């Protein structure tokens, strides 16, 4: 026997200690979740209320208008988000995030007022909103690899969110259920107004 059990335990303990001292890569400024860039994009949307709520708001607005608007938003919003993100990733600087309050104000106000904008107008709103929010997201990730996959995950999450919320609102017929959607719009607009206060503060 080269060494006794006590000696062996000490060696194992020393190895365990050395393993624990292994440095982990510092991840400052990198909100990754460790599952890869596509999941990072998905979780970014789900964990960022400043992006998630406008996407939900547009889905509610399109749902109030009906299936035609909803179908347009379902495709236009994720594509515009991806295109905006790609543009932001290539040329953007992360500025203008304070302007997200206007997405809240505009969409929340339209839902609360039950305006039911036309299909082309809703499509234009989806394109502008998607491009703007995507641009802000893209400009924040321009220094990382796999940015396109991140944006793909983001766009997929937007697609799913729009699909879920429009399919929830379109079949609503009861008066109280329609009012609940309008109340949700007023909450979103109210939050936007307060965000404006934060931005001006």
């Amino acid at each position, binding site marked *: 026997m080269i060494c006794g059990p006590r000696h062996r335990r000490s060696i194992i303990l020393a190895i365990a200690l050395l393993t624990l001292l292994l*440095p982990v890569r510092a991840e400052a400024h990198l909100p990754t979740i460790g599952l890869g860039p596509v999941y990072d994009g998905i979780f970014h949307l789900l964990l960022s209320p400043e992006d998630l709520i406008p996407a939900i708001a547009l889905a509610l607005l399109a749902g109030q208008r009906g299936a035609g608007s909803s179908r347009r938003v379902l495709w236009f919003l994720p594509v515009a988000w991806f295109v905006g993100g790609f543009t932001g990733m290539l040329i953007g600087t992360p500025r203008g995030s304070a302007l997200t309050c206007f997405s809240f104000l505009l969409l929340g106000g339209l839902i609360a007022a039950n305006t039911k904008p036309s299909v082309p107008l809703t499509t234009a709103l989806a394109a502008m909103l998607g491009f703007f929010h995507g641009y802000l997201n893209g400009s924040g990730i321009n220094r990382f690899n796999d940015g396109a996959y991140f944006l793909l995950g983001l766009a997929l999450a937007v697609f799913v969110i729009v699909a879920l919320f429009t399919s929830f609102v379109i079949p609503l017929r009861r008066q109280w259920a329609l009012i609940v959607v309008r*109340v949700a719009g007023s909450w979103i607009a109210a939050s936007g107004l307060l965000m404006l206060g934060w931005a001006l503060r």
Partner: protein
Amino acid sequence: MKASKETTTRFAIILFSFLLYAQAVEAHVHKGEAVSFLSGLKHPISGLDHVVAMIAVGLWGAQLGAPAIWVLPVAFPMVMAFGGMLGLLGVPLPGMEIGIAASAILLGAAVMTELRPPIALAAALVGFFAIFHGYAHGSELPPGESGLLYSLGFVMATGCLHAAGISIGLVHRWNWGQRALRVVGAAIALAGIFFMWKVFA
């Protein structure tokens, strides 16, 4: 005895080695956002003056019936957010506490007497008082928290208090319910007088 001491020492070493484990640096990660949301959610329900006034809005809406039952909860958050914005910007609003106490007195009295003014007048009265309540929420934000989540929290909590008032107010369809609502209105007005007394005491 000696073996036991040795085991304790080993455990202590292992435990200590965990303290040396290198953690990922999380500079600028959005921390405390849940706390912000909960702070906002808690704010309107932490003060009895806010609670009774918000419930009175719901009760009055239920007594007035359509369209007041949905106009008030849709309009109130937006006007309240305007008051919150004034608070955030530091715009002076003298007599804020008086306004909040007066809202409980007048809204409680309206419920007690089943006052039925034109819808525009009812909305204007409720909106006027909403500014004072919003101002209080906006100016009392705990430092270092997420503005958006705090805003969402207090808008949602206020909306839930309205919903609670409306739900209670549904007993208005029965005779005993109408009497009970008047009693609740009187209690709210009395609470308002107490709040007013506290302001000047």
